[in-house]
């Protein structure tokens, strides 16, 4: 058996075909609430159970517990607020109303409004991001972009944001069947937003030595300028796995989600999402989900100590590097040589080499992966 969903039950909040047709046909009669891409992806993740046990956006009691205790009001570990905000002008409905959540003209879900409440933005950012510095993108979003009220309530999914990568998307209920079909009892989750270099491959394969399978789960969402495009990352992973991973030990599938860059708290959230997909283990890297210099390099690993009941085992890695003396890819604990013999994996180096169309040594990037990256005239966002 793969892992038990977070909170004990896999949530599925998807409208029946009949209900969906009725809602879409009468969309104009609903009170409509426009949401952004982050909330649109959150709606999808709630509907398909990626955020189990959440069945909607958080009410004030849950938000309070999440901010102060890093748990839901049911005591289940939860670190990232899943919320939808409105401005005074958008607050045209009351508790008890049904509103339609609409993204970019697409009606996505019906929400039963259970709570409309104000919140303390300063407390929010200090708890979630451990800073109130608006140069942190998550802090900026809360302080400058979010409305002054939050709306909580259960949702029912009627549609999702168009997905150009739907053939790479599996819902938790599907990954759970897949892992079972493969006979995996232990599965390690790997989160990524990058094209794979050898450092990633070694982390994954080292973890894989101890479990039955690996679930490589790239996050598709808004990217920073200079990041690899989603299709490039997916193509690169497909090539890597085809050439270097036994077919029955690895699964590649995406999740659509907007990063919060909340460092340690977000690492816990990432682990919970993968637990719901069926993972028993989750790889937590250096400065996981961090941004700038806001978090210590291993803070995202240390926070796991506070959750004896998380139900997914974190797997911690230090940095891998290539050592000329060792003649291979190693890490601190197994290589006695000095820094002058070591070549560190650097995303910036890879990006620059690709931009200049330079050859990248095979101990940094597999030639098959390099070929994919070079085959795109403009592989960057």
């Amino acid at each position: 058996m793969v892992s038990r969903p977070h909170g004990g039950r896999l949530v599925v909040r998807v409208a029946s075909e009949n209900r969906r047709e009725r809602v879409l046909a009468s969309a104009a009669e609903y009170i409509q609430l426009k949401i952004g891409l982050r909330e649109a992806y959150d709606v999808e993740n709630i509907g398909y159970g990626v955020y189990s046990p959440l069945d909607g956006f958080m009410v004030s009691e849950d938000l309070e517990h999440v901010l102060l205790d890093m748990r839901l009001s049911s005591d289940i570990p939860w670190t990232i607020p899943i919320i939808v905000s409105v401005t005074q002008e958008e607050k045209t409905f009351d508790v008890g109303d049904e509103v339609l959540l609409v993204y970019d003209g697409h009606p996505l879900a019906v929400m039963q409004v259970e709570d409309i409440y104000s919140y303390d933005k300063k407390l929010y950012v200090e708890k979630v991001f451990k800073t109130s510095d608006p140069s942190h993108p998550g802090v900026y979003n809360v302080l400058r972009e979010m409305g002054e009220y939050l709306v909580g309530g259960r949702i029912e999914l009627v549609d999702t944001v168009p997905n150009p990568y739907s053939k790479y998307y599996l819902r938790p209920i599907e990954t759970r069947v897949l892992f079972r079909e493969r006979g995996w009892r232990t599965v390690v989750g790997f989160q990524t937003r990058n094209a794979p270099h050898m450092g990633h491959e070694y982390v994954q394969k080292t973890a894989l030595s101890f479990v039955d399978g690996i679930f490589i789960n790239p996050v598709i969402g808004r990217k920073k300028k200079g990041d690899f495009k989603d299709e490039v990352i997916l193509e690169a992973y497909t090539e890597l796995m085809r050439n270097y991973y036994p077919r029955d030990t690895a699964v590649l599938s995406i999740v659509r989600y907007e990063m919060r860059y909340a460092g340690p708290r977000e690492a816990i959230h990432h682990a919970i999402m993968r637990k719901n997909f069926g993972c028993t283990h989750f790889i937590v890297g250096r400065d996981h989900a961090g941004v700038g210099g806001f978090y210590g390099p291993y803070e995202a690993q240390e926070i796991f100590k506070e959750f004896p009941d998380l139900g997914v085992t974190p797997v911690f890695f230090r940095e891998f590097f290539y050592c000329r003396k060792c003649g291979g890819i190693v890490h601190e604990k197994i290589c006695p040589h000095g820094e002058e013999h070591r070549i560190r994996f650097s995303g910036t180096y890879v990006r620059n080499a690709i931009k200049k169309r330079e050859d990248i040594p095979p101990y940094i990037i597999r030639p098959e992966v390099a070929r994919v990256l070079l085959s795109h005239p403009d592989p960057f966002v």
Partner: protein
Amino acid sequence: MTTGKYTTVSIPKSLYNRIKKLVEETGFKSVSDYVTYVLREVVAMHESEKYEEPFGEKDLEEIKKRLKALGYI
């Protein structure tokens, strides 16, 4: 700062003293912190024993069909 919502549970005084001694040598702030930590660990373990996958035979066939079509199985 926490929500500060607590209740009281009774444990034998002797056990309390025993934990107090242990807590002094660990990173826990208090006996209550230690007890909360241990209880969460044990409760989660017991909860995880009762779980059934959320799909019936019919769903299973549908899901397998999609997984096959996408080349996953």
